[in-house]
Structures are given as structure tokens and as C-alpha cells.
């Protein structure tokens, strides 16, 4: 057993364990809820996860550099609202709107990045502050008005239903594919690009990274900009999915993204984590969240409590596994020498 464990990288084992847990959860819920394993349920979970996934990936990038971004929720709200408002006056096509959303997200992310990387404000303080500032800006700008679907161009309203292809009754929605493609791009880039290794280096050991000639400030700045860009994408998906945007849009998304990231095996101390893990973590958290609302046994008010317990369990399991693997590797190595 220990030789098997030694052969695989701990991260791989973590991802496999995560997939197993997901399978178990799905199996459990399918026994409790009727029509659980249907295309409709799949789409419901998939579209809901499609909003959170970009945010989770952005959060993972930031956490990898040993920081945290608590402002993503407010960022999503701002992008969703401002784009929705803008589209009401100037109807744009899908591509310009996407670019606008990404640019807006990048701008807000740059503010965070400047504060943390160059102002050397600890990320928890900086993003706690921008969380409040962004939300306040949104409230003041909107004057508590709501964006409604009748002011939005048709392609936005139709987007949630748009499918890429259909296999029988099984539909693959555009929004889901867009989210997954973004995840794949980041996943491949992180594991293959040499410059992407810098994110891991800065989070793993900032001093060593600096001595190796890595410009830590720029890396951290980029991480926050990317987090903003992805939150912008999520904001656009959010706008398309819900149509009606209030000033509390996106409230609490930062907690969900951290849950997804932590469950997905990204170490909160930075320096490790895989995008595949984040995808699985997002799907797991979202599956549990969506399934609980449909489970008659448990009232919807348990959602938040169970989410908190889930995160604690994931982090505790992660800590135990990491420690016991380290101990096992050390003991087998000692046995060999």
C-alpha cells in the first residue's frame, strides 16, 4: 500500500479521492431524490456550477500565491450590473460584451493587485476593504434600481437555454462549455507554461522565489488581475443566467469560491493545487448545495451550516492526509537508508 502511495504524487491521490467522494455523493442523492440522474438535474447543477467555476479558478490562482481574494463576490455583482445597465443603453453583440466584462474585471482586479503587490497591504485587509468599496460603489451607482430582462438584448436572455449540441434529451449548454473551456485553458497553462510555475514558486517560498530572480510583486499582481478577469467572466454568465440583477448580486460568492478551492485540494498556505482539483471541488460543493435543496429530509436552512461543515471536513482531511503521507514517505525512506 505504501509503495502504491509512494508511486503517485499526493496531488494525484487527492484528486482521485475527490472524484470518489463526488461519485459517492451522487450515488447517495440518487437514492434519496427521484429523477436525480436525469439530464435536467445535470443541467441545473452544471449551469449553477458554471457561474462559480471561473471565480473558483481565479481564487485558486490567488491562493496559490499565498494570498486571498475576498472581493470576488462584489466584483461579480459590479460586472453583472454595469454590463447589464450598459447593454440596456447600447446593445452589443456577444464578443464585445465578453471583452468588456473581462476588461472591467481586470480593472477591478488590478486595484486589488496594486494594493497587495505594490502597496504591500496584506491581501486579507486589502480585499476586505475592496469588498466593501466595490459593493458600496454598486449600491450608489445603481440607486437600488434593478436590472430587468426586458432591457437586455435577446442574445443575453436566450443564452442560458442555448445549447452547443444535443444527444437525445441530453443537452450541453453554451454557458457550461464556456466555463469548462476557461478551466481547461488555465489548467493546461498552469501545468505546461514555464512562466506559470512562478505562481507556485511565489506561494511556496516567497524568499526563495525572490532569490531565484522571480519578480514576486508582478506575479502577485497578475494573480489578482486574472482573478478579476475570471470574476468578470463569471459576472457575465451570472447576468445571462439570472437576467434580473439586484444590488446584492454576487453576495457571498467569495465564501463559495474559497470552499470550492479548499475542497479542491489547493493548500491555503499556497504553493500547490491543480485546476482539475478546483473543478471537482466546485462541482462537489455545488452538487451538495443543489441536492440539499431538493432533499425532503433536510430543510433548506441547513444549506449554509452544511457548507461550513463540508469545508471544515475537507480542510481537516487534507491536513491529515498531507501529514500522514509525509510521515509515510519519511519512514519508508528511513527504512531504505
Amino acid at each position, binding site marked *: 500500500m505504501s509503495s502504491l502511495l509512494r508511486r503517485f504524487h499526493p496531488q494525484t491521490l487527492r484528486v482521485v479521492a475527490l472524484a470518489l467522494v463526488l461519485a459517492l455523493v451522487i450515488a447517495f442523492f440518487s437514492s434519496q431524490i427521484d429523477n436525480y440522474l436525469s439530464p435536467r438535474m445535470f443541467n441545473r447543477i452544471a449551469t449553477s456550477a458554471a457561474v462559480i467555476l471561473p471565480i473558483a479558478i481565479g481564487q485558486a490562482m490567488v491562493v496559490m500565491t499565498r494570498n486571498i481574494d475576498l472581493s470576488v463576490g462584489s466584483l461579480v455583482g459590479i460586472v453583472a450590473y454595469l454590463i447589464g445597465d450598459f447593454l440596456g443603453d447600447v446593445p452589443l453583440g456577444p464578443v464585445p460584451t465578453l471583452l468588456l466584462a473581462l476588461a472591467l474585471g481586470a480593472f477591478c482586479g488590478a486595484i486589488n493587485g496594486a494594493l497587495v503587490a505594490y*502597496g*504591500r497591504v496584506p491581501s486579507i485587509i486589502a480585499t476586505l476593504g475592496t469588498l*466593501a468599496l466595490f459593493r458600496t460603489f454598486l449600491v450608489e451607482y445603481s440607486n437600488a434600481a434593478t436590472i430587468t430582462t426586458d432591457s437586455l438584448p435577446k442574445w443575453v436572455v436566450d443564452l442560458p437555454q442555448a445549447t452547443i449540441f444535443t444527444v437525445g434529451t441530453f443537452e450541453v449548454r453554451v454557458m457550461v462549455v464556456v466555463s469548462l473551456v476557461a478551466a481547461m485553458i488555465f489548467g493546461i497553462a498552469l501545468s505546461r507554461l514555464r512562466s506559470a510555475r512562478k505562481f507556485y514558486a511565489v506561494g511556496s517560498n516567497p524568499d526563495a522565489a525572490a532569490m531565484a530572480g522571480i519578480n514576486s510583486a508582478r506575479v502577485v499582481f497578475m494573480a489578482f488581475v486574472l482573478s478579476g478577469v475570471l470574476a468578470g467572466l463569471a459576472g457575465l454568465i451570472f447576468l445571462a443566467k439570472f437576467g434580473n440583477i439586484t444590488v446584492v448580486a454576487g453576495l457571498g460568492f467569495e465564501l463559495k469560491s474559497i470552499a470550492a478551492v479548499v475542497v479542491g485540494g489547493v493548500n491555503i498556505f499556497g504553493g500547490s493545487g491543480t485546476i482539475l482539483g478546483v473543478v471537482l471541488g466546485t462541482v462537489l460543493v455545488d452538487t451538495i448545495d443543489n441536492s440539499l435543496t431538493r432533499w425532503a429530509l433536510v430543510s433548506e436552512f441547513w444549506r449554509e451550516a452544511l457548507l461550513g461543515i463540508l469545508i471544515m471536513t475537507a480542510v481537516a482531511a487534507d491536513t491529515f492526509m498531507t501529514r500522514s503521507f509525509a510521515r509515510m514517505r519519511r519512514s519508508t525512506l528511513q527504512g531504505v537508508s
Partner: protein
Amino acid sequence: MKQFFASWEGLLLVILVIVVATNAFTVDEFLTRQNQINLFQLSIEKIIVALAMTFIIISAEIDLSVASIMGLAACAFAILFHSGVPAGVAIVLCLLLGVAAGAFNAFWVAYVGIPSLVVTLAMLIGYRGFARVLLEDQGLGNFPDWFVRLGRDPFIGPFPLSLIVFVALLVGLSILLHRTGFGRQVFVIGNNAEVARYSGVKVARIRTILFIMSGFVSALAGLFYAGRLASVRGDAAFGFELDIITMVLLGGVSVFGGKGSMLGVLLSILIVLNLRNGMALENITGHIQTAVIGILLIGSVLGPNLIDNLRKRPA
């Protein structure tokens, strides 16, 4: 004397004087006694928790779950009281609940070694979730008269009980932090926990005490909150941690631990309260107030960093 004014506390004192003076000259009802007492009353729960949070942050930890513990204690009190439990017993049970919550946090941070940021972030969600489970979507009120008046009725002189509790905690905790061995150990742990451990400081035990204290004080504050609002919902005290942490950090307590003073926290509390009070009297919305506080928070860290950068730049 000059040393005092060059320090963070000195800077805070100057800012406080500016804020109070601005309020006194531009806002009409500012200098009335009722307003001065109101100033504290509206935020009395937050400033009580801020005192306990100071210890936590000096020890290089953080407790993001305080607002959720406040809400949980308030909701628990409401449910218990409405189930027929006498108010006095309910109060004791809720305080014990706070202790239990703090102990739960402490276990994971001090003994398992999971970063406090993660644990208290998860429990911020968890305890808030339990509060919602208790109350679902109803609002409960109809508390006993004496309970509701705890924050209003004069207890000693013209000052209500909650204010007395705050002052007592302020004095007691200041002595604990700055004049006892325990307080010294908290600073040492914040500076370098490993060195503290090798020096014989019982790090895990002290961390446990601090988180339990934080849980207890949060529950106490939650009860005062329930009394002041006279009715409780599942989202009681939602988001309070932002203000609480801001007050502590603005007070010169380093987020990396090992540095800070109760005097600084007191001054920053007064600044935040006066700012909010002045803005409220000028009909500035709560959101902009929060934004101003947010800017103040970022500025309090950014400012010294920028000054450091300028100093380091070769002439």
C-alpha cells in the same frame, strides 16, 4: 512626549481630535449628551468584541467567525426563551454556547494546526448556518422588558449596563494584555510562535484561551444585540466582523502579530464611532459609511508602507 506623537497612537489621537472637531462644528446635534451616549450604544456590541479580537490578532491569528457567533447566540436566546426557558437560564446557556463555539475553533487552530483564517472562515459560514437553522426565516421578539432595556436604562449614573461592561472589559483586558505575564506571552506568540514554544510558553493552551474568550465575548455581545434590537432574525449581526477587524487593525495592531496596544484600539474605536455618528447625523447612507471605513482601513496599512518606501529610497 514627542515620541508619543510620532507613534501610531499619537497619529490616532490627532485624527480623533480632527474628527471630533469636524463633527462638533459642522453637525448640529453632535455635542448633546444623548447623542454622545447614542454614539456608543449603536455599536456597543462591536466594540466589546473588538477588545477580545485585539488579543487574537496580536497572537498572529484571526477570528472571522465572531459575527456569526453573535448571531448564533442571539438566535439561540430567542429560541430558548420562546420555548419557555427562563430568560436568566437562557442567557447562561447562550454564553456557554459561545464558549463551546470558541473551544471548537480553538481545537482546530491550536491542536490540529489548521490556519485560523480557514477555520474561522468555515465556521463563519457554519455558525451562521446554525443560526438560520434555529430561526429559519422568522423573526422572534417579545423579550422581557428588563432584557430589552439593558442597553438603554441607566445602570450606574447615566450609563447603561452595556457601556459599563465595555469599560470594565477595557480596563480589565488592558491590564491583562500590558501588565501580566499572560499578556507578554500573547505578544511573544504573535512575534514568533516557534520561539515561544521553545521558551516554554504553552502556545496551544494560550491560543485556546484566546479563542474561547473571543467566543464568550461574541456571545455576550450577541445577547446585548438581541436586547437592543428587541427582535432577532437569522441574519443577526451579519457582516459585523468587517467593522470589528477594522477597529483593531486601525488601532495599530499588526495583522502579522506581535505588535499593538489597547490604547490604540480604544482610540481607533472612538474614531470609527465618531465618524459613523457624524456621517449618520448628516444623513450619509450606511453604505458610504462602510466605504469610508474601508478606505480608512486600507489607508491605515498603505500609509505606513508608502512612508517606509519613501524613506528607503536613496536620496
